[in-house]
């Protein structure tokens, strides 16, 4: 037990001995400190000093999602129920993990030239950086607050256009 004081740096040593003062033997007896600690943990045990349990009982109680949280993607629709995406490939270009795959086709509507035939995001590759959302000129893609997503196969994690539109 004397080793503890010996091995500390000189500065710490003087500090400690100043604090301990004359009752060095009492300090080396350990027992006062032990009982102090025991008292402290007991207060925690009975939650006496306004201690509260921090655990969130997850499936029953959802943890509040912070503002700006980046979860799963969603493709937005306009007022007519069509996807806003015009297949400009901006998001695919900017994506750092290269997880977006777009195949364009000619749009049947007069207000735009193209629309995506295939729009796939590989969620296993995605790093949820939100760059696609920022790059999109039409405000067609955004990151939702969904985070509790499970799937049992890898193919399920490649989200297609329908999945993203309904997300």
């Amino acid at each position, binding site marked *: 037990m*004397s080793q503890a004081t010996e091995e500390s740096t000189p500065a710490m040593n003087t500090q400690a001995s100043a604090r301990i003062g004359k009752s060095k033997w009492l300090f080396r007896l350990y027992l006062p400190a032990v009982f102090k600690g025991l008292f402290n943990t007991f207060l925690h045990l009975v939650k006496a000093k306004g201690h509260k349990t921090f655990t969130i009982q997850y499936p029953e109680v959802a943890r509040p999602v912070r503002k700006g949280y980046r979860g799963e993607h969603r493709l937005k629709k306009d007022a007519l129920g069509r996807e806003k995406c015009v297949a400009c490939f901006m998001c695919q270009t900017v994506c750092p993990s290269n997880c977006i795959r777009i195949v364009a086709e000619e749009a049947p509507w007069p207000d735009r030239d193209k629309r995506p035939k295939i729009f796939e995001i590989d969620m296993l590759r995605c790093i949820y950086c939100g760059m696609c959302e920022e790059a999109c000129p039409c405000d067609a893609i955004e990151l939702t607050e969904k985070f509790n997503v499970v799937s049992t196969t890898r193919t399920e994690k490649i989200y297609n256009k329908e999945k993203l539109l309904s997300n």
Partner: protein
Amino acid sequence: MDAFVFYISGVLSVVAAALVVTRKNPVHGTIYLVLFFLLVSLDYLILRAPFLAIIQVLVYAGAILVLFLFVIMLLNLSEEELRESTSTTRKGFAGILSAGLFGLLSWGILRSPTVRNMGDLAAPVTSPTLAKAGETEAIGQALFTTHALAFEFSSILILVAILGAIYLTKKRKQTSSAPSQTSLTGLESQEEAGQKHAPADGARLEKRLA
């Protein structure tokens, strides 16, 4: 009943003792030695000496062999090192010596008047003092009255042994000035503890603190 237990434990203890010396691996030898001590303590129980029986296990199996084991495991010999065999002449010499010792002991025991006058050991103990002879109190009484001198002498012997151990492990002046006392691995401090290094180290520390 007692005789039955004795024969079984006797045979087993001889087997265990034989296994102790024949095992190549010292750790296996230790196991059989533990077994041997337990069987010997059973013999003490048959002789109605529970105190001796317990002390036999507590001191030999519980303490001394643990230290043996500690050192064996610390060395942790590899299989190649274990395979090294001793020469035949040495084995023969050891065999002759053990046989001689065995003969001498049997001769001494068989000729001893105390053993001869003991009578039938299988007979049930009738006298109440004799029945209590192996109990803690009786042994304590004998130790501190009749055999007080022998007891004190043996304690002096042990004291001398402790002093010797402390002297052997005490670090010389030149080395002790080096401040590298910190043992980070834990193994070093275990070695210290195993070699009863702590007391000497302690004395020096106390001096430095004062």
